């Protein structure tokens, strides 16, 4: 960020403050986009306090989320798909009725998503899932679910991002690209901040990036290990061998042995090493095993220095979803509540396996967009069954669903708790009112739960 640009920005901001009679600035706003959960945003509102004019401090993606809530053509009432494929506006009560009936009629409904909403809404959703005997899954299933499996298998030595900012002097980004996916991660926590023991900012840190592509993150690295795609497990295993000073083959995953020894030495010589990892390892060949052995590397490093490992969680509250289910059911994702007690086994009770194997007969989606992110075979199954999509936006999922229920934006139009990628809970803030008459996720879920209980009581 150039100095002149920063000056320009601060000038613009002070201009807003000068015409303070017109614009109102809301400070310490939490960004409901990614798992970095930045909590230093400032939002400028018009003089009525109802319209968002600008968003400061946020990355382009975060700012867009706030501004998107202001779209003129935003959907404000539920709509039901008609036989001819057109959409008809219905009331929230009708939407509640359809959703409740669908969940009761289904032998095994899938309730998926939960990552872009507050913990309190997730908690109501859990109760609803338990009452109707649903399979409940969150976006971790196509994201960091494999990390959760690895944590169950071998545990995890972790830390908070505050600790990283203040202490970490060896930072590894493995299979992730924060320059684009978590744009403010490096400036707030991992590379640039001048912390208590990291007074020289990026100069006090060595940055290692492991990625088969030369990403914008990789371009910033001191060491870029451009490994062969799909050989992360072998390379991590080689680092373990190198940490112990044992003999390695000439190359592993396309990386020369000397480079691997150098990286092992770099990590061992630091005062605090941290590994951040993303989809490049959690969803490539081996999945949970890649994370399992990355945790083993972290454990090994703790024989020489302090080391921690942190997943780069995507949705702003996917971590919270795992937390809520963890305390309510004992498992963080892939829950099968169909038989009245919680069962869990990714590969069996995971959304895509359930859909592809025809194990579910209704789909309820809240706070995620499987239409855009699931394999087309799974999306086709959702399109064929009774389905509800609860989402403020029109998405590929809402397009294939039978009922679309728009709701208020959590973190913009209603507050609520969210968990950052390092499992720190942060209360998001309400900035503006939702459009008149619109419900929040939690209100809609509460109404469905009440209706389901009434119907079950009558049956």
């Amino acid at each position, binding site marked *: 960020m150039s100095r002149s640009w920063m000056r320009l920005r601060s000038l613009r901001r002070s201009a807003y403050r000068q015409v303070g009679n017109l614009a109102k600035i809301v400070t310490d706003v939490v960004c409901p986009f990614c798992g970095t959960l930045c909590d230093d945003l400032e939002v400028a509102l018009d003089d009525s306090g109802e319209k968002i004019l600008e968003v400061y401090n946020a990355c382009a993606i975060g700012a867009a989320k706030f501004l998107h809530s202001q779209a003129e053509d935003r959907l404000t009432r539920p709509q039901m798909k008609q036989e001819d494929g057109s959409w008809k506006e219905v009331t929230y009560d009708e939407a509640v009725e359809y959703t409740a009936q669908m969940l009761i009629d289904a032998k095994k409904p899938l309730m998926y998503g939960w990552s872009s909403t507050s913990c309190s809404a997730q908690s109501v959703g859990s109760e609803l899932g338990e009452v109707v005997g649903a399979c409940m899954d969150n976006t971790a299933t196509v994201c960091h679910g494999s990390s959760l499996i690895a944590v169950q298998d071998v545990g995890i030595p972790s830390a908070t991002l505050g600790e990283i900012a203040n202490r970490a002097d060896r930072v590894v980004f493995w299979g992730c690209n924060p320059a684009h996916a978590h744009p403010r991660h490096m400036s707030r926590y991992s590379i640039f901040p001048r912390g208590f023991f990291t007074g020289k900012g990026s100069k006090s840190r060595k940055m290692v990036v492991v990625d088969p592509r030369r990403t914008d993150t990789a371009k910033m690295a001191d060491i870029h290990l451009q490994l062969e795609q799909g050989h992360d497990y072998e390379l991590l295993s080689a680092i373990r*061998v190198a940490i112990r000073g044992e003999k390695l083959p000439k190359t592993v995953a396309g990386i020369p042995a000397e480079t691997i020894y150098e990286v092992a030495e770099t990590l061992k010589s630091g005062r605090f090493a941290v590994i951040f990892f993303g989809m490049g390892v959690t969803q490539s060949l081996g999945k949970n095993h890649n994370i399992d052995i990355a945790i083993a590397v972290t454990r090994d490093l703790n024989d020489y220095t302090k080391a921690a490992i942190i997943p780069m969680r995507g949705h702003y509250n996917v971590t919270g979803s795992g937390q809520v289910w963890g305390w309510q059911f004992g498992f963080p994702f892939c829950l099968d509540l169909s038989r009245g007690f919680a069962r869990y086994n990714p590969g069996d009770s995971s959304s895509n396996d359930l859909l592809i194997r025809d194990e579910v007969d209704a789909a309820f989606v809240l706070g995620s967009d499987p239409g855009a992110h699931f394999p087309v075979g799974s999306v086709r199954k959702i399109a064929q069954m009774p389905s509800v999509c609860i989402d403020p936006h029109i998405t590929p999922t809402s397009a294939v669903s039978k009922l679309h229920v728009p709701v208020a934006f959590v973190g913009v139009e209603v507050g609520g708790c969210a968990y950052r990628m390092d499992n720190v809970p942060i209360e998001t803030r309400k900035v503006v009112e939702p459009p008149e008459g619109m419900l929040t996720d939690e209100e809609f879920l509460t109404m469905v739960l009440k209706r389901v209980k009434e119907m079950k009581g009558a049956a």
Partner: protein
Amino acid sequence: MAKITLTPTKTPTLRLEAENICPDSFAGKSNEEIANLHVFVGKESQALGDYFEIAGESGSTAAETTIVINGDVNRVKYIGMKMSAGEVIINGDADMYVGAWMSGGKINANGSVDAFSGLGMTGGELIIKGDAGNYLGAAYRGDWRGMQGGTIRVSGNAGSDVGTFMRGGTIIIGGNVDVHVGTHMEGGTIIVKGDAKSRVGGQMVKGDIYVFGDIEVMMPGFQYRKDVDSEVDGTTGSFALYEGDIGERHGKSKGETIYGKLYMKH
């Protein structure tokens, strides 16, 4: 030995959860009682008799009971789960969890089985004529005890994650295996008569893995030690012995570090 035959009469709309298809559940019950045993389709509890025609009779104990399934049960889960004795013969394909956590008896699957078969098994025999899915003889999520005893024999191929966290017993695969064989293994024997892709013996602590064919990508933590002649499941041959995973923790016995052993056939 009393023999009871189940013939599938209809295909479940979703998948059928039938942990009651097990000699331990059938033993000492009349055919009517057996027909009334529960099966689950999602949250609905139904009767076994809704899906199978039941003939013959069961024995008074599990050990005296043989269950024969005549037909495809590829949408039926949990067959022979947690069985302790007796025999199950499946004349067709079966779904997930065949013989999971079994402690004794014998399962003859004459077709293929899906994932998680023989999960955490402690004893008995699981014979699969066709192919096996992923996680054969592995550990349940978060458990550090995979297969601990007994024998699994697959004539065809097996999927990924064979014998993850395995601590005892023997797994023999006639064909090829997918990635991750014996990951975190702490005992027991895995014999692969075909080829393996990669990640054989990753994070292995102890135990033996034999591969008769090729390994596409070898783990970097395995080091060649010597050639040995031995007889493995009826085949005599010369094997190259590798030890590893060097990066993993290892115990000591009589002052010597004990590694996992990987034998590659010459």
